């Protein structure tokens, strides 16, 4: 066990691509935790998908040993944090395991919204925040301006802002010294009953659930009986250890230390991030604060293109859940799309990652319905139901008000784009909040926006309106009533459930027009005219027609052509297999995908 005065626990807060992973690699090298030969590029990001997207989905921790200028040996625990808006809760738990945070900003790009949001989380959690400007080796680097931005956020002087290049290693030694000097040591009570914070967990096929934890008070010993306080479960600490970064079993983990715990539990949802581990024999009376259940924010129906893949989809979801307790789903039946699952995600990125993994790692061909949020509808009997799918919305007669979730949105943009950003926000029913200049060139804008307005394409439009310079962060901010209606899309008079959407009354016409227009181009001509209508209740708000097919015959079929023609029609027939019958209308599978695709303009 290490003396608490020799321990420094810290996280790195940085935007995607601002060099967090590269810096982590440098720290591992400098402290001798990994030799260069062992060095894999960006060791802390283990999943392929993370590597490709350059983001960290699951936090990890690594124990570094550093001999400081004072001649003392220090243990530095670097706790990685997820870098995306969907994982705010996990970020907050990682931060809760630290005493300090390194705020890392790209010298060319400056502070981004998510970084700022996470920085505020760190400040709120009482962490010592050490500012640093990375990538000073870049030709476009502007460390002076970025330093003054950081000073504007954190106070202090520009001289206190570290300047480094994770790529070349410049400034890394000074960073290590600064961390030792400025991050406070832990101050847990070694004699109190054990309290350890679970800040991350993952499923290992051989070992079961592995959780990462930070011991706050007391001591965790191998083999002892432990209790997860929120889950209420008791297990044995089969193995405990440090990550150096390789797992290294130890007999005890003392106060202030960070390590892993294996209990033999196989189901990841039984061990939740934020839970407190205590001793079963000598339990703590109160758990560590801040635990909450993962709450899905965005919902989408996932349907296999080939109905026969339904069971495979279920199995794939179950496997994904082994590593992702926040993924929830329930079976859903669509008249148009058949059997599938309505899945709940923490946010948009989470949704995208899950879909991509299902398609890539499990080789599934999926149709996803338009993302929806959870609406709250009070029923006449006083109950309030949560509506996660437009199909479930009670008829207007059985409800009067609908509430929708809002989010607090923070946007950081160069000042020249304030106009376009305001325009976008207003178009998305935003309530304009504050405006805060980070520097003469960059401004932080705050809004409250219905979540439904940002789940589609808000981020894409924001990026295009600001030439990619704006960044965005959001967090839930409760429910508000709104004038929402359900728009149905009817093919030949029959509603197609997959295309129904709950939208604001002012946007209903636009949605209806867009969908009917798209479908007119996507639905092949049939034997009869097919009206495509958008309707609110019984009222038609938009209409298009796919005219009947009039010619479907090859000009010639003489002796030589029979085989060829049979093959041609056979191919066309195979194409028809990918059609879904909606009433009497044949709709190609691609039409569902294309019609529900988010606009890219």
């Amino acid at each position: 066990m290490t003396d608490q005065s020799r321990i420094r626990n810290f996280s790195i807060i940085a935007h995607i691509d601002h060099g967090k992973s590269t810096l982590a690699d440098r720290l591992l090298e400098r402290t001798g935790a990994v030799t260069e030969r062992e060095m894999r590029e960006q060791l802390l990001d283990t999943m392929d998908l993370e590597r490709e997207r350059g983001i960290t989905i699951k936090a990890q921790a690594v124990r570094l040993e550093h001999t400081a200028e004072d001649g003392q040996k220090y243990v530095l625990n670097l706790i990685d944090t997820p870098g995306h808006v969907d994982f705010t809760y996990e970020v907050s738990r990682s931060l809760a395991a630290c005493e300090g945070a390194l705020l890392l900003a790209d010298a060319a790009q400056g502070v981004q919204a998510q970084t700022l949001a996470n920085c505020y989380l760190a400040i709120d959690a009482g962490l010592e925040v050490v500012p640093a400007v990375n990538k000073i080796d870049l030709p476009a680097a502007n460390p002076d301006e970025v330093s003054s931005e950081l000073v504007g956020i954190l106070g202090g002087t520009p001289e206190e802002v570290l300047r480094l290049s994770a790529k070349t290693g410049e400034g890394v030694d000074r960073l290590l010294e600064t961390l030792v000097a400025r991050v406070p040591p832990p101050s847990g009570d070694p004699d109190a009953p054990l309290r350890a914070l679970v800040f991350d967990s993952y499923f290992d096929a051989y070992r079961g659930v592995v959780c990462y934890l930070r011991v706050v008070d007391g001591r965790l010993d191998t083999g002892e009986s432990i209790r997860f306080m929120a889950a209420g479960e008791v297990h044995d600490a089969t193995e405990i250890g440090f990550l150096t970064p390789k797992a290294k079993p130890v007999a005890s983990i003392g106060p202030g230390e960070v390590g892993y715990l294996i209990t033999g539990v196989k189901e990841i949802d039984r061990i939740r991030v934020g839970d407190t581990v205590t001793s079963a024999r000598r339990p703590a009376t109160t758990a560590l604060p801040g635990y909450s259940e993962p709450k899905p924010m965005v919902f989408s129906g996932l349907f296999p293109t080939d109905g026969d893949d339904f069971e495979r989809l279920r199995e794939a979801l179950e496997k994904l859940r082994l590593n992702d307790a926040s993924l929830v789903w329930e079976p859903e039946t669509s008249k148009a799309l058949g059997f599938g699952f309505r899945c709940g995600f923490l946010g948009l990125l989470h949704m995208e990652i899950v879909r991509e993994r299902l398609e890539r790692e499990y080789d599934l061909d999926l149709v996803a319905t338009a993302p929806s949020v959870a609406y709250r509808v009070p029923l006449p009997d006083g109950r309030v139901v949560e509506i996660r799918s437009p199909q479930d919305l009670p008829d207007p007669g059985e409800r009067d008000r609908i509430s929708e979730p809002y989010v607090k949105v923070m946007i950081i943009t160069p000042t020249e784009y304030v106009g376009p950003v305001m325009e976008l926000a207003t178009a998305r029913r935003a309530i304009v909040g504050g405006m805060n200049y980070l520097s003469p060139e960059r401004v932080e804008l705050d809004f409250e926006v219905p979540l439904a307005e940002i789940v589609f394409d808000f981020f894409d439009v924001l990026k295009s309106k600001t030439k990619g310079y704006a960044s965005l962060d959001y967090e839930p901010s409760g429910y508000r009533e709104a004038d929402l209606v359900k728009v149905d899309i009817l093919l030949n008079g029959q509603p197609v459930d997959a295309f129904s959407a709950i939208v604001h009354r002012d946007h209903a016409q636009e949605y209806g027009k867009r969908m009917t227009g798209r479908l007119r181009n996507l639905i092949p001509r049939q034997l009869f005219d097919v009206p495509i209508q958008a309707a609110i209740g019984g009222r038609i708000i938009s209409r298009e027609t796919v005219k009947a097919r009039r010619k479907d015959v090859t000009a010639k079929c003489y002796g030589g052509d029979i085989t060829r023609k049979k093959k041609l029609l056979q191919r066309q027939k195979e194409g028809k297999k990918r059609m879904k019958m909606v009433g009497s209308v044949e709709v190609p599978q691609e039409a569902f995908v294309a019609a529900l695709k988010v606009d890219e303009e």
Partner: protein
Amino acid sequence: MRPDQADALATASAAYVHIPFCSAVCPYCDFAVVAGNDHLVRRYVDAVISEVAMTEPWQPLESVYFGGGTPSHVDPAWLGEILEALARRHGIASDAEVTLEANPEDFDLAKATELTALGFNRISLGAQSFDESVLALLGRRHGPAHITRAVSAARDGGFGSVSIDLIYGTPGESDNSWLATLHETVALSTDHVSCYALTVERGTPLGRAVNRGAPAPDPDVQADRFGAADEVLRGAGLHRYEVSNWARPGHECRYNLTVWAQGEYLGHGNGAHGFRDGLRYRNHRRLEAYLEHVEAGRWPRAGEETIEGWDAELDRLFVGLRRSLGVAHGPGTTAILESVEGGRLAAAGVITADSERLVVTRPLLTDAVLRCALSQPAPIVMADGDA
């Protein structure tokens, strides 16, 4: 023609002879054709004669069809040699229909007289249009005057049955242009007219042009043009007996009717298909490959398949349903009529059935019916060869 007469052609004997040579290749054509290879013509004629000689002798042929390519591009005497070879091998019935495809620009009275003397009695002229601009769009090398002259030459030269081919729906052709072409056609009083919707085939110059963004034929426009053709030709006493073919009574093309009745036929020449003893075969399409095989004494077959059971029944529908008189009931029609899709087709007026036959009443949607047939599982009771 009565349905039973048409169906009876299933037992007729027919032969197709492919002549691949052309003076130039039309941009829309995807047949096995060559241009600028006239030095190979004699070798080719000899090869076809050899192929005929290799063939198992059959009953006297009731119809022979020389198609192409441009058969009229070849010396009539050489065509006569091939006809003679067929006569020697199988015999040619005294009342046989012997058709030759010809281009208007290389057809005159002298040629016509020579051909009829050799035994040809039916001519099919590739007129395509009477509109100079449409002919130019189609890359044709003749003008309207050539067509009129060629029809007169055929009549004067003794052809008992004269047909012309037309193409409709060429981008650039107008309603009026098409109507004018139809009226010019009717004025020539031919015995038979084929009207084909211009089709964009992959790998042709037209196909490539369309891929690059050139206008493609509009199927709705083509549907309108088809309607106009049927109206004008019917008014002139020509009845439609197949999707793209109209004839005066008694002048229906017997060779094609044989194919559409699922009758058997010999196929000679490069790229030709034949159907004999339940075996459908195809010859090498490349001219050189065909010549090399035959000259080495080998069958020029590139592939073959036995057509039996459900496959044969599907074939019967594929060819038979294109005819205006449809097909007699069999396992295939039952399968269509009992299917959900068949019900939709009947409801949309695409097919009509009585106790005897199934008829496609909206011929421009024939392929929808055929796809429906293809989608049906083979009935369990369907034994080999009882179609």
